């Protein structure tokens, strides 16, 4: 038989440029969205005469994206499995008022001079409420077979009611010491540098470890120059970011929290069975079932995870605005869905990345910040955001067809 096996045959290493080009073509979607982000930034920088890039503004830009980003990360997993969650905005809102309620009323009476313990307990309770609600919704969706759209739409109404019950229609202050630090705090510049150094060392260590492991298994190694270029590029991004925000007041704690969460979730999506199964279920439910994947369990866990991330988002929200209000989290679910989709998550399921959702979220918050700086009326901000969302998805459809 003239059967040739081309799998894994070493080929002459191409030039760096060619390798980069190949990588670009194979990840065209990710790069398109990054290019869109850069284009938006340049546009705003020009229109605001550079004010868009001041240290203070960049600092605010990143902090503004954090709450929706936590939700968008969870939403990627939900949409990847072919589901949707409309309740995340209100869930984050509910968690924020619960945390505020405990901060302002309960702990203050129980232990008025223990702000650190109080804040810790608030975080635990808030995140716990998120997880519990995720467990409830996940159970109804996965085990009672009610479509996620309906369960979470109902959940949205229920949470709205719960928010009104807890707040009694009033605003609850959540600006106590320590608790405020969660979303309003800044790391001292030196801590920012230490973290940057750790990240850079990790990036290089990870690159060499991965090459070593591949070599041990006898695989062809990717072009070293290319890998170095990519690693150096990301290192420079991190260093540059830290340098720039240190010009203002330093790295914000919520951004650090988001970065850690995003890294963990990106790892989970690629390197655990839980993550792989989510993509398989969304890609072909029948094939996943015949492969012995417990679909109910996976979907249940996805909604629990979504609840957990909504809980974290709620805590950050309460700490960031300093209040628990009746309107907390209003419309955040739509921002989260939009971010995930801008970042390349397919509404048909099976496709989507955490990294993409973060970029999508960054685009959304860049639009908000930039348009505000230009004093564009809120009505027009909505029009622009809606247009960008549809245009971005159309561009993706167009490029896929005409590749």
């Amino acid at each position: 038989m003239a059967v040739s096996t081309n799998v894994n045959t070493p080929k002459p290493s191409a030039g760096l440029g060619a390798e980069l080009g190949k990588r670009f073509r194979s990840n065209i979607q990710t790069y398109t969205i990054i290019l869109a982000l850069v284009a938006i930034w340049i546009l705003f920088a020009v229109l605001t005469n550079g004010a868009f890039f001041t240290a203070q503004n960049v600092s605010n830009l990143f902090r503004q994206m954090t709450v929706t980003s936590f939700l968008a990360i969870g939403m990627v997993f939900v949409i990847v499995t072919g589901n949707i969650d409309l309740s995340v905005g209100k869930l984050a809102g509910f968690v924020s008022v619960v945390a505020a309620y405990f901060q302002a009323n309960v702990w203050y009476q129980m232990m008025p001079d223990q702000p650190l313990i109080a804040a810790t307990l608030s975080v635990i309770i808030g995140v716990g409420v998120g997880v519990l609600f995720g467990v409830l919704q996940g159970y109804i969706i996965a085990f009672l077979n009610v479509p996620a759209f309906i369960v979470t739409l109902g959940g949205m109404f229920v949470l709205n009611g719960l928010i009104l019950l807890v707040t009694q229609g009033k605003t609850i202050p959540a600006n106590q010491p320590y608790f405020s630090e969660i979303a309003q705090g800044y790391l001292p510049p030196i801590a920012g540098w230490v973290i940057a150094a750790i990240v850079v060392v990790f990036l290089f260590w990870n690159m060499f470890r991965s090459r070593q492991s591949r070599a041990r298994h006898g695989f062809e190694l990717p072009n070293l120059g290319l890998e170095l270029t990519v690693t150096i590029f990301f290192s420079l991004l991190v260093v540059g970011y830290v340098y720039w925000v240190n010009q203002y007041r330093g790295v914000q704690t919520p951004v650090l929290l988001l970065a850690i969460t995003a890294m963990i979730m990106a790892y989970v999506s690629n390197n655990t069975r839980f993550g792989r199964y989510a993509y398989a279920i969304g890609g072909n439910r029948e094939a996943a079932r015949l492969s012995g994947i417990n679909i109910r369990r996976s979907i249940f866990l996805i909604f629990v995870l979504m609840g957990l991330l909504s809980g974290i988002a709620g805590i950050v929200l309460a700490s960031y605005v300093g209040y628990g209000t009746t309107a907390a989290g209003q419309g955040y679910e739509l921002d989260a869905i939009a971010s995930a989709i801008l970042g390349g998550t397919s509404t048909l399921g099976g496709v989507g990345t955490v990294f993409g959702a973060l970029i999508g979220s960054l685009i959304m918050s860049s639009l908000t910040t930039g348009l505000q700086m230009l004093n564009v009326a809120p009505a027009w901000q909505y029009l622009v955001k809606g247009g960008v969302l549809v245009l971005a998805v159309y561009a993706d459809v167009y490029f896929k067809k005409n590749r």
Partner: protein
Amino acid sequence: MSDDIILDIRNVTKRFPGVTALDNVSIQIRRGEIHGLCGENGAGKSTLMKILSGVYPHGDYEGTIIYDGKELNLGVGAIRQAREEGIAIVYQELTLVPNMTVGENVFLGKEPVERGSIDWNKLYADTRDILAKYRLDVSPQSVVKYLGVGKMQMVEIAKALSENAKILILDEPTSALTESEIDKLMEILENLRSHGVTCIYITHKLEEFFRITDSVTILRDGKTVATLPTRELTQEKLVSYMVGREMKERFPRGHRQPGEVIFEVTDLHAVDPNETSRKVLNGVTFNLRRGEILGIAGLMGSGRTELVTTIFGEYGKITGGSIKLEGQEIRVSDARDAMHKGISLVPEDRKGQGLVLMQSILKNISLANLDQFSGFMRIDGDAELAAATQQAKALAVKAPNLQVRVDSLSGGNQQKVVIAKWLLSNPKILIMDDPTRGIDVGAKYEIYKLMNDLAERGVSIIMISSELEEVLGMSDRIMVMHEGRSTRTLEIAEASQERIMALATGIADELVAA
């Protein structure tokens, strides 16, 4: 019967990459007759129907088709046009909107309109007239989902006739019908004939040709074997026309000595889990030896796929009988359980059930076996890649690397990926449901060789196939199914195409064996 030809198919050839589905097919159909179309699975019947109904437009095939005196010239996407020309197909799978009434379905897309709104009275009156004319016994106002399959078929027929169909093509209309519904359908067809409607009738149930058709055309391997008046035919003659060909050297012969019996199914009964009144298995008995290839033959709808998916724990609800693996009675709860017990299933529908098309070869191969490479949380990506690479090499998957998406591969290579995936769990029993469907001859040969290698290494294989040649070429023994039952298990030496076909169509074995 006149000699007025309504449809003259002349030398039609239709090629797909690697396969010639229709090879110089010529059929003449007279006006007003019921013309039977007969052939094994894959003989080219459905391709021909797709040409007539406009799925494959004019120019997509060679040859000419003269319809009602002029050349049939259907453009691209001309399914609508074919209907307007008067060629209507009633498919095996009904195409009605379940939540709509009979009248709404009959006039779907061509509702009578009066000053911008639908004229409901006219719609229901016209429906009633059509139903009455052809003596179709359904009420125009009934909601379709509450009707039985037989009645739904009547609605389909009414829908076709409402467009003034001159030729009505019925594709296996009786496969889901009960005996009394079949009788009713036969009456309707006779009535249609008396109204001058021409029918092309496709079925796997040979006795129906004798019941209703005026003449029969037999297709085999995409060629017309013969067109004969029904009265000159017998069932035995039909069978020999369907299969009468010589075996070619297309199958590598293995040298193996099957060992002891390791798997036994005894009198297995099962029902459809979603509709427990519907029996899918009515007594299946067979056994499987170590290192053996057991072929399962049977026509579509005979319960072959239902049998293997039930064994795999993913379909039928078992209501009786036993399954024994290595002497121990087992109950398989789901796919994961089956894999733990050493049973793998290469499913029938490669794209629908076997692969996650948008994912890479690597992820597809490892999907069912990620446990092998992961600890509590982390998947060891390198171990995963190493194992998948080894499988891909063993199966000669042709691809630049394992990161390639499987939807960019050819059918044969996709099938190898599915097989690689299911071999990764080191099964004792490998069930393959139509493993070579829709793949080219070269890839088929590679898969046959692989099956022989596996059997020689002691893996027991159950192979379902729609192609008789393949079953005969590859199996050590052949179990033939008919209507949810196992009829007989033939040793390869006593098996022949005629004999299998006779068992599969439900004609008594002796008729042909004699």
